[in-house]
Each structure stands twice: as C-alpha cells, then as structure tokens.
C-alpha cells in the first residue's frame, strides 16, 4: 500500500470541470462543484430571509443599494421576500441536495464501489450534467427578468402560479421556474437510468447484490424513486405551462383576480397538489436515503465494527422506498381533498417511522462496542444520527392527521423539514465530503478545521431549527413576510431574533468548510490509497483514481463490505478484494 503509483496524468481541475466528459469521476466532480455553488446561492438567499425575519420592520442599511428594486428604502418588499423563499427552497432541495447526492456522489462512487470502469451509458451521463447546468442557469435567470423570480413557493400551487396577475413573480419568472424544473428532471432521469443500469449490470466478478455497501444500496433505491416519481412532475409542469400560456384549464377554475374575471372552466387546483406531492414526497426519501447509506458505511469504518443487521437494513430500506411513494397525501390533509383519504395517508405516513427507525437502529447497533476513530466524517455522522432522530419525530406530529390540523402550514413544518431534510441530509453530505475528499483529490482535509466546522455547525443547527418548531406551536404561519401585525404572534418575535442570530453563526461556520476545502486541495496531508483503512473497492485504487479506475484487470470481490474489527480474520480489516 503506497502512494505515487499512479503514473497516469490527470488534467488540471479547471479543465476537467469545463469539458464535456464521459468519465464518471469528472462528471461527478462537475456535479459536485456546481451543486456546492448552488448551495452558496441558496445560502445567500437564506441569509436575506433570516435578516428580514429577525427584524421585519427595521431598515437594513445596505439592502437598498444591493437590491434597488427588491428592497427600496432598505426594507425587503413582500414580493421580493416571496421570491427569495421560493428560490431558496427550490435551489436547496433540487439544485443542491438532489444534484450533489445522486449527480455528485452517485457518479463518483457507483463505478468505483461496484468495480466498474465507468457508467453503463457514459455519453448520457455527460449529457445529464450539461442539461443540469442549463437548468441551473435558467432557474437563476428568474432573478433577472421583469417581475422577478417565481414567488408562488417551491410547491408552485396554482392558481397563484398559473395566473400572471396573481403575484409579480408569476410572470416570466414562474415560466422560467417551470422550464428549469422540467430540464432538471430530464437531467435527473438520464442520471437515474444510468445509475440503476450500472448497479444492476456492471458489478465486477464476485460483487453480488448482498456484497454491495449500504452506500450503493441507498443510491440505487434513491435512483429508482427518482425514476418513478420525477416524470409525474414533468407532466404537471407542462400542463401548468399550458394553463399559463395557452388558456387551458387543468388546474385553474374560474377566478376573479385583480378586479377582473378570468373565465376558465373546470380546472381543479388540488390536482396540481397531487402531481406535485407525488414527486415531492418521494423526493424527501430520494434525499434522505443516500445519507443513510453514507453514514452507515462511515460509522462502520470509524467504529471498526461490521455494519449491524445488513440484510435487515436493506429490507427496511426497500419497504421505506415503497412506502414513500404512497404517502404524498399527508401534505394535503386540509387541502379540501376528501377527508376519508386522509386516514390511509395518515396511517401509512406514520408507519414510515418503522422502516426508518429500523435503519437507524442498525446504524446505532453498529456503534455498540466500537473502537472509535473520532474523525470529522465520523462526527458529522453522529450529528446526522442526532438530527435525524430529533427531526424525524417531528414528522409524526405532521403525519398524524389530527395534529396536522393545527400544525399544517406553520413554522413547525418549516422547522421539521429543515431539521430532517435540510440539516441531517446536509450532515450526510458533509460526512461524505470529508470522507471521500481524499479519493477525489488525493489529499485529506484538515481535521483541525473540520472539527471546528463540526462543533460550530452542530450547535448552531440546533439553535436555528428547533426553535422554529416552537414558533409553529405558537401558531406562526409559514411564508409570512412579517408576523408583527398579529397580536398572538407578537410575543414570539424574540425567538425569530434568536433564530436569525443562530442562522448567521451557522452560515459563518460554513466558511471554515470552504477554506478547508480549497486549502486542503494544495496543502492537505497527502492521502494514500486507503487512508481510512476501509474495506470497499474505491479504496483499492490510487487517490485520485486514474481514467478507467482499474489497471489491466477488474478487481475480483471475495467478501462483503464489512469485514472490520473483531470479525476480520486477521488484522483490523479485510478489503473486499482479499481472497
């Protein structure tokens, strides 16, 4: 095991990022960098949102100069605020998290971990990235057009999103939003198809399905969900575009907006909600599954223990994926849909906790008796476990139909999905970034900076997102520009100030990550092939791996991915390739 036996020249990073490549690792890095860039955009939007919500009635000195249209007199306009909220949600959910998990880590890891040289369809893979990049550009272009970016929420409920007069962002901004989403889905379909085909058909000799690491299982299920759920939204987006521009009435009934009658006939806004959440809910599991897989593998590696209950966890993940497709109605308990429908949706939703809890128990069981190596990826994995539990139980309050009657569309919902979807998934992404960075760039990230990053992020995350639940319990509605008009919300404003303060600390802490990321690329400790002493296949090739990944012969797999610690026949671990 040594360094420097990679003699294949690798082009400089900027060239690899800018060319049309069919190499899965280059495409992975293209996704990886683009998605982090989108996270930065989403983060700036979050900063503006929190700046406003902390002090909704106070002028902020520099705002007017930055946004002459959006913040005249140094106070955000309501329409600009709604555009910020809409774009923040859309960008973070789709253009950051989905893109980095499947596009970034999926691309980079799948061929390496299953022992393939590349994806099944390398050209499709390259195309997928460039369509994704185009969708990012179209999405952000919304900010530059008249009326501003889409402002109907990331859920884009019609008629607000289907009638141009309903809200300023419902002009060209909403059209661009829908086009960007359609492009994003096309790109994601090309990706998902590729990941599924590759995992099913291109595993190396000996790599049976039950020898796949949890990472691959979770990416596989996530891709399957994407393939099944995303197209429904494409269909919805096209219908909504027709409603907007060609006078159809799929989602738009007769309405009276802005002093004039808009005579459409027969459309039903609830239909869009079904379309949207048929994608939107599986989307949550598309995001949560890969971090579960990453954390399972990372925890096993740093606890030096075999993963507890591998088959149980896979079975649970299959059930979870299935259930996630039939629970979308819990977003619609008070939408006006038939109240009888709420009963099966509610039961199925809270039963999701059973397979979900099973996977978490398996990860928790892996920790028992561990010989811990407290590294940054391990810390972020523990943070993930904490947040996913705290955030997860919040879901029971919203999935239980009768408590949702009160909590629906309040900050409890905002707090819930920011704890579980935003934060815990983000922690999975951080853990994975710190863990696979050496494989991507040949150097390790600084542990000292990494740990500072973890501690500040962990504490600030709790202080930011848990109090949002309390706002919701107090009755504060989500997506309101200001709560100050309401007597019953006035007492909650100090919590909003606290959340904003904590959110600023949280954002500031991310600079440590950025600095670490770029500093380590040149100055980090040089990584060997297998710096973490892990068992899976990607650690059997040089860091970074050459084009084609493997030398003359593909690796042969003789064992499962978890021969670690006490069960490794000799030494502390056995790679999957050890005979």
């Amino acid at each position: 095991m040594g360094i420097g036996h990679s003699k294949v020249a690798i082009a400089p990073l900027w060239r690899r990022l800018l060319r049309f490549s069919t190499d899965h690792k280059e495409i992975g890095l293209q996704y990886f960098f683009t998605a982090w860039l989108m996270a930065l955009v989403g983060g700036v939007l979050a900063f503006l949102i929190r700046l406003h919500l902390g002090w909704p009635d106070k002028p902020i000195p520099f705002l007017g100069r930055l946004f002459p249209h959006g913040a005249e007199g140094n106070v955000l306009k309501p329409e600009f605020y709604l555009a910020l909220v809409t774009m923040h949600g859309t960008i973070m959910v789709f253009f950051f998290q989905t893109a980095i998990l499947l596009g970034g880590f999926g691309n980079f890891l799948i061929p390496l971990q299953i022992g393939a040289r590349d994806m099944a369809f390398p050209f499709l893979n390259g195309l997928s990235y460039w369509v994704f990049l185009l969708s990012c550009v179209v999405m952000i272009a919304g900010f530059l057009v008249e009326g501003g970016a889409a402002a109907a929420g990331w859920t884009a409920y019609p008629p607000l999103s289907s009638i141009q007069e309903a809200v300023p962002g419902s002009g060209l901004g909403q059209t661009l939003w829908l086009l960007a989403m359609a492009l994003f889905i096309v790109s994601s379909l090309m990706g998902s198809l590729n990941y599924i085909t590759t995992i099913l058909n291109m595993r190396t000799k000996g790599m049976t399905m039950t020898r796949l690491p949890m990472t691959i299982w979770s990416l596989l299920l996530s891709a399957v969900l994407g393939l099944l759920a995303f197209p429904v939204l494409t269909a919805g987006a096209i219908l909504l575009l027709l409603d907007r521009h060609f006078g159809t009435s799929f989602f738009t009934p007769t309405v009276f907006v802005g002093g004039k009658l808009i005579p459409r006939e027969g459309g039903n806004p609830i239909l869009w909600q079904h379309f949207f959440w048929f994608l939107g809910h599986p989307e949550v599991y598309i995001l949560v599954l890969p971090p579960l897989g990453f954390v399972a593998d990372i925890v096993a590696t740093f606890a030096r223990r075999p993963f507890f209950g591998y088959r149980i966890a896979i079975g649970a993940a299959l059930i979870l994926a299935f259930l996630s497709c039939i629970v979308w109605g819990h977003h619609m308990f008070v939408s006006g849909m038939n109240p009888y429908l709420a009963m099966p949706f509610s039961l199925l939703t809270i039963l999701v906790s059973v397979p979900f809890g099973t996977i978490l128990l398996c990860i928790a069981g892996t920790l028992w008796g561990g010989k811990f190596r407290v590294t940054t990826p391990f810390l972020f994995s523990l943070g993930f476990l904490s947040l996913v539990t705290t955030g997860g139980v919040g879901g029971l309050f919203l999935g239980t139909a009768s408590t949702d009657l009160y909590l629906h569309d309040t900050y409890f919902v905002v707090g819930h999905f920011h704890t579980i979807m935003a934060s815990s998934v983000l922690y999975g992404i951080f853990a994975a970034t710190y863990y696979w960075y050496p494989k991507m760039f040949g150097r390790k990230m600084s542990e000292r900076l990494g740990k500072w990053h973890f501690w500040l992020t962990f504490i600030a995350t709790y202080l930011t997102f848990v109090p949002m639940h309390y706002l919701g319990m107090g009755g504060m509605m989500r997506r309101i520009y200001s709560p100050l008009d309401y007597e019953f919300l006035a007492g909650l404003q100090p919590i909003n100030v606290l959340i904003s303060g904590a959110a600023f600390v949280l954002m500031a802490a991310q600079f440590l990550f950025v600095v670490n990321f770029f500093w380590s690329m040149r100055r980090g400790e040089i990584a060997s092939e297998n710096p973490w002493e892990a068992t899976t296949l990607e650690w059997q090739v040089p860091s970074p791996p050459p084009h084609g990944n493997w030398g003359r012969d593909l690796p042969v797999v003789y064992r499962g991915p978890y021969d670690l610690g006490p069960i490794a026949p000799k030494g502390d671990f056995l790679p999957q390739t050890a005979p």
Partner: protein
Amino acid sequence: MGSHTVSTTVERRALAVVLVVLVAGLVFFTIRFAGRMPEAISPIGQEIDSLFRFLLTVTGVIVIAAHLYLAAVLWRFGDERAQAPIVRRQWPWVLVPIGLLFLADITFDHKSNKIWGKVFGTPPADAFTVEVTGEQFAWAIRYPGKDGKFGKTDLRNITDDNPLGLDRNDPAGKDDIFFPAGQGELHIPVNRPVLFLIKSKDVLHSFCIPWVRLKMDAVPGMTTKLWFTPSKEGQYEFTCAELCGLGHYKMRGILIVESSDKLEEWLSQQPTAADLIP
C-alpha cells in the same frame, strides 16, 4: 499506520456530554413552549391538544433514549478493553424497539382517527352557519339571514357594490348579510356548533383559527367546510395559512365569540343584501 489511531477519549466524552446537555435543553424548552400555545377555546381544540401532548411524551421518550444511547456508547467504548463481542442474533435487538414504535404509531392513528371523525363528521342540523370567502388579501363574511339560506353567488355577477357576486334574482339571497373583504368582524355564538362554508374568489387561501387548532383551505371553484363548537367568549384573531400572494401576511381577521342573544341583536342591526344591492 496513521495518527488517527491515537486515543481521542476527551473528544468522545465531550460529545457524549454535549448530547446529554442538548437533550436536556430540548426537553426543557419543548415543555416550556408547549405550555405557551394559544389557549384552546373549543372541546375539539382541547382534544387535539391532548393528542399533541401524548405525541410529545412518546416522541420525547424516543429522542431522550436515542441521545442517551449515543452518549453512553461514546462514553464507554473506544479502546481495546471496552470492545463488546459481535452480536450474531441481530433481529431481537431491532424487533423489540421497532415493535414498540409500531404500537405507538397505531395508537397515534387510533387517537387521531377519533378526532378526525368528529372534525369531518356531519355537522349538527342546528349549526349556526357562516360563509367566509378569501380573496387577495382579506376575508369576506356572509350570514344567511333570517331564512337560514344563502343566496346563490357567481363570480360573473361581481361588481363594485356586489363584491361577492350575489344573484339578485335569488329570493334566498335577499336577507343575506354580507361584509366585503376586510370590512367586518366575524361574529359567532358560544356553545353552539358553528359551520363555516369556506370559499375563495381567486387563489388558494386557508381559513385558520389557531385558537381552535383547525384550518381548512379555501379553494376557488369549491366550497370546503369546517365546524366546531366554541366554548369561550372573547375576541380572537384568525389568519390565512396558505401562501396567497404578497399580502398573505396581512390577511388577518377578527373573530368574536359571544352569547347567542348578543349575536342575534348584532345581526338584526346589520343591513341586508336587499338594502345594499336592491
């Protein structure tokens, strides 16, 4: 091989302590803020609150147990000596807690269904009925008048003096009492079932009264319903809970719960549709 095999006991145990402090803080503040929710002013609201508290208790146990487990593991294990043998029979360790979770889920569902059935069951025939119509960005209010029947409305009839689009030829509408959006207070009787008919003129809204723990979307082209029995007189705020445009945050209304006598007296003083739009 690497420096990471060096014992990191201090860091491990620091994290264990932080996790315990964290969960203690969670419990403390959650109990504190659960006690500060707006007062529930109807029996159904109180039932929803008691289900909420039941959920808090059960999920509280889950969160405490999970964090204490993490903390204990981090505190105890970490060097060769402390290693535990591999568990070969794994399923009982999963099945027992998951079985308990399953039972908790079924209990939540059972309790929830009982409440759900009451909220969405048929309202009593003698319910006091009032219609609320959402529009950007206020609520219009309409009472059926003495005949107890609402006149027909159609968005096509809307004019400046007929903001709800009442059908002037419908006799049932003559004695309707209406307040254009943002121009009236919502009066309802105490201790009598109140049925709300919820409509929208333009986009989605959601009629939300935090004090009764209920909300229901206002959907253009549809009439949705909500009913409950207010049990405490007073003046409360109601809101719009569904994003409806840039004035969404301003869609505030005043709900007045008062005795039936007072309400009848107040209603009899209001002009009817026949007075306003002959």
